[in-house]
């Protein structure tokens, strides 16, 4: 399968990328690692007429810690998260979840900014950022703005990013206690059928592939906060959700899995 033709622009900086997006309008797409976009282009499910390559913006590849906040450049690759000693110390869930994305070759190319911008509800890292209560920094023509992860995912493959904005940084709080990530799939390389991320001993709980976006399991969080057992809290995991049905799981089974894996994740995160 061969992608359709497009025009190719190399961005020299984030500002340049934003300017190119503004110039080309909604027919343009950013290309970072390409591991979400290129497969869709090969099947011609995506046919952008202009690709703006931000993959060479190495100044957006970093992981820094400052005052309890970890700032990660948008072009940081999954494998760099996976092997980061800073994350291993200060926010091990991000490293651990990154290590479960795709396979090693995918992790060498895929970027944190790209996976967030793609806003796939079945993706692992958005759920981790969501459970951690992270913040996404977007750059647009008029400068940077911060978007809380809880406000970022607006629909199926849709985010709060404007057409002429790009993610430049992701911030998550340092958090090294009471975390767990459960990913359930049939083959290790595949997207999660259901995933559950627990941060801060249940203060943050998020769900993968349980709706049109990555989701915070607010009922579970509230139950944990009020002292409920893991089992009782997990029983609320699918409350009010309309998960998708596909080859691997229908909606009922997904709800069931969400409860099972929320309990397992809470238990592993130290919630009894």
């Amino acid at each position: 399968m061969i992608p359709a033709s497009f025009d190719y622009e190399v961005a020299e900086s984030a500002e340049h990328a934003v300017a190119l997006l503004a110039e080309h309008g909604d027919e343009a797409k950013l290309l970072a690692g390409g591991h979400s976009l290129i497969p869709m282009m090969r099947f011609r499910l995506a046919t952008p007429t202009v690709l703006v390559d931000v993959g060479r913006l190495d100044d957006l590849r970093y992981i820094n810690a400052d005052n309890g906040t970890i700032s990660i450049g948008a072009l940081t690759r999954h494998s760099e998260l996976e092997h980061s000693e800073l994350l291993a110390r200060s926010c091990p869930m991000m490293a651990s979840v990154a290590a479960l994305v795709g396979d090693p070759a995918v992790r060498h190319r895929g970027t944190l900014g790209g996976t967030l911008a793609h806003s796939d509800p079945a993706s692992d890292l958005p759920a981790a950022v969501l459970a951690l209560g992270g913040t996404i920094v977007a750059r647009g023509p008029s400068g940077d703005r911060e978007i809380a992860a809880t406000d970022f995912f607006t629909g199926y493959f849709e985010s709060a990013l404007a057409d002429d904005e790009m993610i430049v940084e992701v911030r998550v709080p340092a958090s090294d206690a009471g975390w767990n990530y459960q990913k359930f799939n049939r083959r290790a390389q595949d997207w999660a059928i259901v995933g559950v991320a627990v941060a801060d001993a249940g203060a943050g709980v998020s769900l993968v592939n349980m709706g049109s976006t990555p989701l915070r399991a607010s009922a579970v969080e509230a139950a944990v906060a009020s002292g409920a057992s893991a089992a009782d809290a997990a029983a609320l995991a699918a409350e009010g959700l309309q998960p998708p049905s596909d080859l691997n799981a229908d909606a009922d089974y997904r709800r069931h899995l969400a409860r099972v894996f929320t309990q397992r994740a809470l238990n592993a995160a130290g919630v009894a």
Partner: protein
Amino acid sequence: MESITLAVNGTERNLEVEPRTLLVHALRDDLRLTGTNIGCDSSSCGACTVLINGQSAKSCTMFAVQADGADITTIEGVADSDGTMHPMQQAFHEHHALQCGYCTPGMVMAAISLVEEYPDLDDQGVRHGLEGNLCRCTGYQNIVNAVLAVAGSGSKGSES
């Protein structure tokens, strides 16, 4: 068309490509390096795995223009010039880790990258490390044994 330069197996190659040209097609069709194979169109099988700046990547999921300026190693570039196979190739041979051989170039490249990236590989580490490379012939056990033999031998024979 875009002009790009790829350092492929140690040699600079200048190419004119359409922006949409997949790296694997640039390697196979333009440079006639046909050892890198194509087994799927969904980034699932890993037959097209090459090393980009020393790390495994699926060359069907990259545009050639993205690799402009990069060092690329394909299966043609890992044996010594005198024909002595890379330790990973030799291990695949000695452990009967291939049958039809179609997935093999990608599998070998993925394995070379894997033992470089993860120092203390065990059976499960190899299996998960190769989860993005499908083989229909071997049932994987001999592949796992071959990679473990290299991982444990200290002779990872990195391509540098």
